[in-house]
């Protein structure tokens, strides 16, 4: 392991101050409060914290990571170009921002959106120019609600901010590509979106580092606030390399009759603990949450979801499809929390696990806490292996075993893929899944190893 990183390059108070310098006072204060909370709170402990019981991060050494890129290394463009190629494949019309530890490395096709009155910029810039809007998004997180979220809150840099004004339908998607390279690199992706009443937007977060098992720390958040009647289609594709620790919170707050659709693909990282929080505050709001997850090697992939119903007659539906091979581990826990006033709630959770290897493991903990009586809430969890009947059916018709298995796994994933709001993202994820099924790990993307971004 590398020597402990001191000074402003490490995860230190100095790094927080370096970021706070020149920022509006409210934001600098928020960073310092978050750092204070981070320093005070204990690390999550799988022996002590119920949320972390099946996810052990005792091997994580935060002191090893560097929040700044080294001055001297090659800062090539290959990784950024690979990220751009994914965007070109899936959504060529989208406004594209590529972000690394060195800041914004690309910022294209913004004109279409700005012409509509949509704000799309770095988070720093937005915090200076539109503080009240940015604060609305930050309000989704209470400073210090958890240690790792406080870490993000204290150290994020070069986030993406999007604001869609009332009744504007953003004509093209916003694609934020976060990448990092170099050993012991830490990155803090931050995507914040505010949609006014009846506005609509399609948003994509893509995360990736070079393939290989270089240690990487990703502490990410996406905070989304939807006004009454707003519609947001949010996608994220996680392709960190096999040495990455990934902690993220994807959280949306829904106004009256708002519709939030989230589609997430989990392919990368050594270990992830990701929170999906749909807070259905408005009456009649709707959250459609879909996850596809493929684990291989010794990956440990933990997803924890919350569907919190405060508004009446709201509808939430989560589908989490998991395939695990080799010695990969999937951990899912979820809660549908229906508060007293949330009558006529319709809540659903489905977690389906396909076990492809003898060493693979899957845990499922779908919880319900219901305090309103006029509701319909249910959940289902299954775990099973490749269906021999299906395999026999295909093989007896001349389909080779490998191809038969690929078809069955794809078939298993298909209904989740079909729920992806954006067809281009759906097809991209389908292609990456196909490669996974063929045995080509999609943890990380091909890029020169000597880059440091």
């Amino acid at each position, binding site marked *: 392991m590398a020597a402990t990183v001191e000074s402003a390059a490490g995860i230190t108070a100095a790094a927080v101050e370096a970021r706070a310098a020149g920022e509006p006072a409210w934001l600098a204060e928020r960073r310092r409060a978050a750092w204070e909370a981070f320093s005070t709170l204990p690390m999550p402990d799988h022996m002590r914290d119920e949320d972390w019981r099946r996810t052990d991060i005792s091997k994580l050494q935060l002191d090893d990571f560097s929040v700044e890129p080294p001055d001297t290394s090659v800062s090539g463009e290959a990784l950024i170009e690979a990220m751009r190629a994914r965007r070109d494949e899936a959504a060529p019309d989208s406004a594209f921002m590529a972000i690394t530890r060195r800041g914004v490395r690309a910022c294209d096709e913004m004109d279409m959106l700005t012409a509509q009155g949509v704000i799309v910029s770095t988070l720093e810039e937005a915090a200076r120019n539109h503080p009240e809007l940015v604060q609305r998004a930050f309000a989704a997180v209470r400073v210090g609600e958890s240690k790792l979220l406080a870490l993000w809150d204290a150290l994020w840099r070069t986030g993406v901010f999007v604001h869609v004004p009332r009744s504007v339908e953003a004509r093209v998607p916003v694609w934020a590509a976060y990448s990092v390279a170099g050993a012991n690199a830490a990155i803090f992706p931050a995507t914040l979106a505010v949609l006014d009443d009846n506005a609509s937007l399609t948003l994509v977060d893509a995360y990736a580092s070079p393939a290989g098992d270089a240690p990487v720390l990703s502490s990410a958040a996406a905070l989304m606030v939807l006004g009454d009647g707003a519609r947001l289609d949010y996608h994220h594709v996680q392709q960190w390399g096999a040495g990455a620790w990934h902690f993220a919170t994807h959280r949306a707050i829904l106004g009256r009759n708002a519709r939030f659709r989230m589609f997430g693909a989990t392919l990368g990282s050594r270990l992830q603990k990701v929170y999906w929080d749909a807070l259905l505050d408005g009456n009649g709001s709707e959250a459609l949450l879909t996850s596809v997850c493929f684990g291989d090697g010794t990956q440990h992939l933990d997803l924890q979801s919350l569907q919190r119903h405060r508004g009446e007659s709201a509808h939430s539906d989560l589908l989490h499809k998991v395939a695990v091979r080799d010695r990969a581990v999937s951990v899912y826990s979820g809660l549908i929390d229906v508060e007293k006033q949330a009558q006529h709630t319709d809540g659903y959770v489905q977690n389906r696990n396909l076990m492809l290897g003898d060493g693979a493991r899957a845990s499922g903990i*779908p919880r319900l806490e219901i305090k309103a009586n006029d*509701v319909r809430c249910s959940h289902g969890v299954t775990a099973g292996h490749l269906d021999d009947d299906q395999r026999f059916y295909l093989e007896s018709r001349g389909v080779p075993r490998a191809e038969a298995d690929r078809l069955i796994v794809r078939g298993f994933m298909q209904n989740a893929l079909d729920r992806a709001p954006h067809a281009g993202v759906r097809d991209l994820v389908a292609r990456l899944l196909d490669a996974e099924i063929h045995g080509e790990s999609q943890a990380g993307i091909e890029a020169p190893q000597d880059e440091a971004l």
Partner: protein
Amino acid sequence: MAVEAHELTKDYKYGFHDVDVSVFRTEKGLSPEVVAAISQHKNEPEWMLKFRLKALQHFEKRAMPTWGADLSGIDFNNIYYYVKPIEEQAGRDWDDVPESIKQTFDKLGIPEAERKFLAGVSAQYDSEVVYHNIRADLEKLGVIFGDCDTGLRDHSEIFRKYFGTVIPPNDNKFAALNSAVWSGGSFVYVPAGVRVDIPLQAYFRINSDNMGQFERTLIIAEEGSYVHYIEGCTAPTYSSDSLHSAVVEIIAHKNAHVRYTTIQNWSNNVYNLVTKRAIAYEGATVEWIDGNLGSKITMKYPAIYLMGERAHGEVLSAAFAGEGQHQDAGAKCVHVAPHTTSNIVSRSISKDGGRTSYRGHIKVYPKAHDVKVSVRCDALLLDEASQSDTYPYSDIENSDVTFGHEATVSKIGEDQIFYLTSRGIPEAEATALIVNGFFEPFVKELPMEYAVELNRLLAVQMEGSVG
């Protein structure tokens, strides 16, 4: 002897209590001296005293569990841990039982059950088993059905071989407490190949204020045997809370079949914190039929460890939580061996601010292939004040598994109510009918007398509630 039989209220029909006639009780609170006094009073062998004292240490070391129901109301220092109601233990003849205790059990209907020729009845009153009987033909086959104290004394070899092996004293805080101060409970031994074709029954009753009841039940079913054990629990309504913390251990050897039925109807001030666990060896079947109607707080998750190939586990759980009640119940199936199967069905109803929680755990170990598990939980919420939770845990470590879990929470279907009311059935009655139907999978597994009793209890609980 005077008996104060309170009016049977609609809320709790067993809420009478007798004048306390106990002949010996330990002082309130828990200490090595109290534990030693219990052991000494029972004339126990040295190893049991050591077992108790060690368990007490475990109890003191362990923190109160905070992950489930609210247990902050328990004051361990305000409890009598041992109360002996009569001088002589376990009379074989109903006539020998003191009149006051007999009247209590009369109200509970044991003599009727006896007259119906049930296989054996033992009744526990406070800490000791006061009356116990077993049919002579079963005794001739080698079936042992007695209380655990007698088991320790008269069948020490079998007893010691199994006691505390399924649930070790350090398993959890309340198992440790029970291990330290246990008294009474049933000891059942069924020899190889013997089918006990009529249920063995036990009744547990708390009569003293601030009383803790800590019975210990140990059931051993040898190869190819069958036994069905039924327990019923009641307690009078006192102003201060009581604690019931039992431990039940079942060992089902190769191809044995054990069914354990509980109808728990403790009064609404009893903390009911019970550890129940069974081990099922090759080809064995264990069934827990678990009904929770009474108590203030119940935390109980009957478990089955499927240790041998083709073992099968079944848990059928029904819970009803009314005002001030929290039923935190569930099931746990641990698949250690290949070709094992388990099935869990849970039905719960919350009403008048009551809270039901299903908490379950399915674990499949890496070597357990060809495993099939099904879990089905349904909950009904009858009004706005009530709450229902589901916490199902599953850890699957083998790829050759078919596992399914489904849960629903809803209110009574308006179309069902409409169907019945449109045919002239009053709404209250329609609701009761639907609730009865909801519990049907549970009720149909009970022997007739219990099914009738349960339906009556449900009708009482449902009085005055409209959809």
